[in-house]
């Protein structure tokens, strides 16, 4: 003998539950297969529930008037063994089999450790995470997006740049990687000093390689007569220094004029972005500041909105921070165009490497007194060369020529009448 369950049958489409209106049998009754057991009422039909077995009613579970779902237990029956179908046990057996299969997955298999999903790769690159140092919680050791997010939130990031030559830069640019592996680096001889490449030097090297391999550079130079500007600055610089406490440099005048010209030629204030060119709305001028072996490019934000005094103040503040090692990444981000004061080293001509991902860099060279012919007469004038490097994917000679001509025009016409300091 064995115990069998009688469950609420499906009594019509859309019927999901039924109410036992009357039990037609009581506990201990003997019933034949297909004998009616109970009357059931649904909101669609009234019907009798037949017995699925021949046997004895052992226990009635649901009282009259109760509503139960289709498939729920109504009563138990005692049934002779050959009637048993064994169906009731089947689902459980299957489940344990499933569990066994699942368990085999949680072995020490690490085959998915280096299979990265797009989300994981993106997060790792954005946050400079060395994935080889991350343990994955996914199937077969896979690193999941959640694993990476947890690391980012914890703030303890296994950075790729901590180590010596690591793999992350290579992953992104196959071209660079290829060149690096093929290069036969110089060997040091006796007496030579080897300086390890770390920190800022390494970052400079990477940026320069990236810029010069990715960006097709082109160059232009114009000669500007800044005699008026020199006179103007000389007449106000001492007073300015006394009043403001910092220098009124030539550089501030140059940045001002360049920012103004960028406003008129926004093309030079752009970035190459693969299938599009992004023209920046803000004019944020990066300026190069050297400190010993290091080179920083802090940013004068919204340069077009600032007076010459405002720019001079920013330059003084940023240069001061650079000297004291106080520059933050905030100070150095969001630049859209770079102006480089190469003239401060006495240079009269240079070819700048573009500050990636900007589209151009302008080098302001030394102001030198030179004989110039004006109206068929020699004159001693203050001359300066402006050298522009441009991303030829974004810019062409025409627009850059017009841009430089406009900068030249602005600078040559800088006088106390038309160019207020404040």
């Amino acid at each position, binding site marked *: 003998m064995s115990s069998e369950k009688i469950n609420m049958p*499906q009594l*019509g*489409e*859309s*019927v*999901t*539950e039924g109410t036992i209106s009357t039990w037609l049998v009581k506990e201990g009754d003997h019933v034949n297969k297909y004998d009616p057991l109970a009357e059931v009422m*649904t*909101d*669609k039909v009234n019907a009798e529930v037949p017995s699925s077995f021949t046997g004895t009613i052992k226990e009635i579970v649901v009282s009259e008037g109760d509503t139960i779902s289709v498939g729920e237990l109504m009563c138990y029956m005692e049934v002779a063994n050959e009637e048993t179908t064994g169906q009731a046990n089947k689902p459980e057996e299957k489940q344990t089999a*499933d569990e066994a299969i699942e368990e085999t*997955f949680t072995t020490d298999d690490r085959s998915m450790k280096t299979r990265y*999903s*797009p*989300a*994981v790769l*993106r997060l790792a690159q954005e946050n400079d995470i060395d994935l080889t140092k991350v343990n994955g919680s*996914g*199937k077969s050791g*896979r690193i*999941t*997006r*959640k694993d990476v997010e947890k690391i980012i939130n914890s703030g303890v990031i296994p950075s790729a740049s901590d180590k010596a030559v690591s793999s992350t830069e290579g992953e992104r640019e196959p071209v660079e990687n290829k060149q690096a592996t093929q290069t036969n680096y110089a060997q040091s001889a006796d007496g030579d000093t080897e300086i390890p490449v770390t920190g800022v030097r390494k970052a400079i090297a990477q940026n320069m390689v990236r810029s010069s391999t990715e960006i097709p550079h082109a160059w232009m130079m114009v000669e500007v007569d800044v005699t008026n500007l020199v006179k103007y600055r000389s007449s106000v610089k001492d007073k300015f220094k006394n009043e403001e406490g910092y220098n009124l440099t030539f550089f501030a005048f140059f940045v001002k004029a360049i920012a103004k010209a960028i406003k008129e030629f926004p093309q030079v204030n752009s970035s190459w972005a693969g299938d599009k060119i992004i023209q920046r709305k803000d004019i944020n001028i990066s300026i190069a500041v050297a400190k010993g072996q290091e080179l920083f490019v802090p940013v004068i934000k919204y340069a077009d909105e600032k007076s010459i005094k405002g720019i001079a103040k920013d330059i003084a503040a940023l240069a001061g921070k650079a000297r004291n090692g106080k520059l933050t990444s905030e100070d150095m981000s969001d630049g859209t165009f770079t102006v480089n004061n190469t003239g401060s080293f006495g240079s009269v001509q240079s070819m700048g490497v573009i500050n990636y991902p900007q589209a151009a860099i302008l080098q302001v060279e030394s102001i030198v007194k030179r004989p110039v012919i004006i109206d068929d007469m020699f004159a001693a004038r203050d001359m300066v060369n402006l050298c522009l490097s441009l991303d030829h994917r974004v810019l062409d000679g025409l627009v850059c020529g017009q841009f430089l001509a406009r900068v030249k025009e602005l600078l040559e016409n800088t006088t106390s009448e038309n160019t207020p300091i404040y």
Partner: protein
Amino acid sequence: MPVMSYIQAVTRALKEEMERDEKVFVLGEDVGVRGGVFRATDGLYDQFGEARVLDTPLAESAIAGVGIGAAMYGMRPVAEMQFVDFILPAVNQILSEAAKIRYRSNNDWTCPITIRAPYGGGVHGALYHSQSLESIFANQPGLKIVMPSTPYDVKGLLKSAIRDEDPVLFFEHKRAYRLIKGEVPTDDYTLPIGKADVKREGTDITVITYGLCVHFALQAAEKLEAEGISTHVLDLRTVYPLDQQGIIEAASKTGKVLLITEDNKEGSIIGQVSAIIAENCLFDLDAPIKRLAGPEVPSMPYAPTLEKEFMLNPDKVERAIRELAEF
């Protein structure tokens, strides 16, 4: 707030709309005296009379055709197809006329018809009472397809469908009719067509589905919560046109996406959902997009064992979520 079943919410919405606007009328097979084979139009004949609750001949093309004509003349018909399986004779009317008339007439004509039809299986209905046919209509600009999951959504969306100026197909899961109950406000409210709804917030897995499967997902999510797997459930509600923004947001949230439909897998609504995610969310994805759907079998079989194999249920959903969680 009163608790009512899914089908009571259908009746409630029809009744309120017919009381609100005398241009609203229903037509279909056995919708009048009988109150519908599922009782969806129960009581409407008594309240509104035979002029507004029309028993039609067994001719779906006529039901659609009469409804479309009346709609073009300014009425607000709600046509019932007794089962979505029987909508096929009316497809020409729906696709060629209802869906296109605004475009074809340069906005001179509109067709504000609502066509209701029960769909879906798991009710022992066999081949012609179990199908999901939404994908037939889901590439026909001019049509909208609404497939609600809860009584609350049923009332709000059916009212919006009736008030919509263009044709709306309103598919109701017949197994949900009496299985799903929920609170439904007595006041007059509508819900926007074309907007998906987050039915549960979660952080590990995103499930995107519609209709009855929403409840399977919610039940599985409830169970998995205890194991520490947090499931985000997005109910599409409108399957055409799809709520792209809602889908992108839900998929990006976890990066592991499970799409569920009771329909056959190939060519189903969730294939389109998958395409939207693939186009927009690549860099947020942490696992292959997974689809859980009916097998490539012509229709739901009658044999209970085979029907069970074909139909989705909370266990199948749970297994699929767990697989994704482990990935």
